[in-house]
């Protein structure tokens, strides 16, 4: 077929040329990601997907190029499934550097909710450590900075609050794990204007339900929960058994989803941060933010089922 280059053809060509930038921009728009369930950070109202991504052990892969690429794939799948919060610490070996490389590789620096920690004594070295961490992540600023395991918290927290006031970090928090120093955590939650508290919470460790969760709700503090699978120990035990019938009603196809849905359906929990090295596992984890959620009675039933198996 030959084209007749009459006046009409030239006009059409001109219209396409003028529309080209808009068409190109539309083609480059990221594919809309599915909307996971979200919870608000009480101090700001900002909403976060309930499933985040931890990096303890899993992202500490050193200079291993293949393992680093695998971590970037995990992050890509995490963001593609609607995830935002990634959590790390200077204590986690090469994890911060691996996250930074992954964010750069997949162009997700604007999407990530960057949660890191300060973990150094004496506390006077805190600002330098935070700057090193920020450089490793490659982000302009952290969204959340937490005092890791309460190390030197009396000295670190005032500095973090100053950073928040100056707009150099958006939220301030504290962390612990495996139920340690709960009295001190409670004391800080009562006395300091923190935005976030990070504690361990899982089907096998429900200590946070006793005092931390009620206090967090009372004081308007967001809760990040770590170790939802007890560093894999919980899943290794549960995977020897068949999923109970309640799992089907909640659209859980694996024990990981079952365990994670139990955690994130706890009303006080803002975000849980399971860690993984596998793309299929991160997708499986993210699925816990979708589908039906258990009510109180179902949560009790979920726990009772697991208690029999542990």
């Amino acid at each position, binding site marked *: 077929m030959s084209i007749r280059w009459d006046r009409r053809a030239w006009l059409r060509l001109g219209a396409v040329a003028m529309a080209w930038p808009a068409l190109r921009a539309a083609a480059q728009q990221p594919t809309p990601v599915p909307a996971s369930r979200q919870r608000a950070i009480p101090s700001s109202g900002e909403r976060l997907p309930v499933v985040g991504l931890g990096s303890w052990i899993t992202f*500490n892969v050193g200079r291993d190029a293949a393992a680093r690429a695998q971590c970037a794939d995990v992050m890509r799948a995490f963001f593609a499934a609607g995830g935002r919060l990634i959590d790390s610490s200077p204590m986690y070996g090469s994890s911060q550097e691996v996250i930074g490389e992954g964010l750069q590789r997949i162009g997700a620096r604007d999407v990530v909710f960057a949660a890191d920690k300060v973990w150094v004594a004496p506390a006077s070295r805190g600002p330098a450590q935070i700057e090193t961490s920020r450089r490793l992540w490659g982000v302009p600023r952290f969204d959340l900075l937490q005092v890791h395991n309460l190390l030197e918290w009396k000295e670190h927290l005032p500095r973090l609050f100053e950073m928040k006031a100056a707009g150099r970090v958006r939220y301030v928090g504290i962390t612990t794990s495996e139920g*340690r*120093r709960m009295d001190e955590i409670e004391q800080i939650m009562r006395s300091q204007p923190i935005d976030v508290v990070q504690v361990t919470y899982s089907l096998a460790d429900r200590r946070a339900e006793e005092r931390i969760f009620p206090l967090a709700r009372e004081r308007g503090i967001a809760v990040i929960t770590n170790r939802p699978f007890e560093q894999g120990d919980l899943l290794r035990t549960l995977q020897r058994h068949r999923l109970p019938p309640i799992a089907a009603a909640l659209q859980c196809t694996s024990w990981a989803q079952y365990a994670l849905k139990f955690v994130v359906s706890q009303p006080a929990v803002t975000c849980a941060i399971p860690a993984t090295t596998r793309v299929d596992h991160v997708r499986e984890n993210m699925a816990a933010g979708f589908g039906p959620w258990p009510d109180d009675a179902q949560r009790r039933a979920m726990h009772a089922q697991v208690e029999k198996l542990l």
Partner: protein
Amino acid sequence: MNEWWNYRLRSFLLFSLRTYDRLIEDYNAQLWPLQAVLVAVAVAGLLALARQPSPARNRSVLAALAAAWCTVAWLFEHQRFAAINWAADYAALLFAVQALALSWAALRRGVALRVESALDRLALAVAALGGAVYPLLTAWLGRSWARAEVFALMPGPTALATVGCLLLAKPVRKRLLVVPLLVCGFEGALLWGLYLPAA
């Protein structure tokens, strides 16, 4: 209050078994065939220890051990292990101190390494375990040969070989044994925390 007592061993492991294995595999691949040379050197040293003692032989063995600690400190702890374990650089410093102490002992001419009793033969067996047999542990653990741990390249076999040799000293230099025994404890913990759960 830090509540250190309720930490489990695994709470202190910052990396996975897979990451640690791949680190050693890559390290071995970069240095091959140095491993074969080092095992041969270790076997020669063990044979020398089993024969008639001489001051020159004693000094050579101690100097070789000092060199081994230097190599482990620089090549493994600082250049490789520090990438996944922030404590490795502190270990490298400690190993450098151990190397200096062994060098000093070699120069002083006062350390006699002799095989006289049944206990000494046991000590020699410990040295042989570290110097020559340790790579076979890899097979025992069901891991790839590519991640075998060799004397003078990895802390575990180096520490065992050092403990065995130093137990032959008359009298035993206890201070020289502190770092190697600490390393043996760490290696045991690593075995307990990483390998046995995966076995």
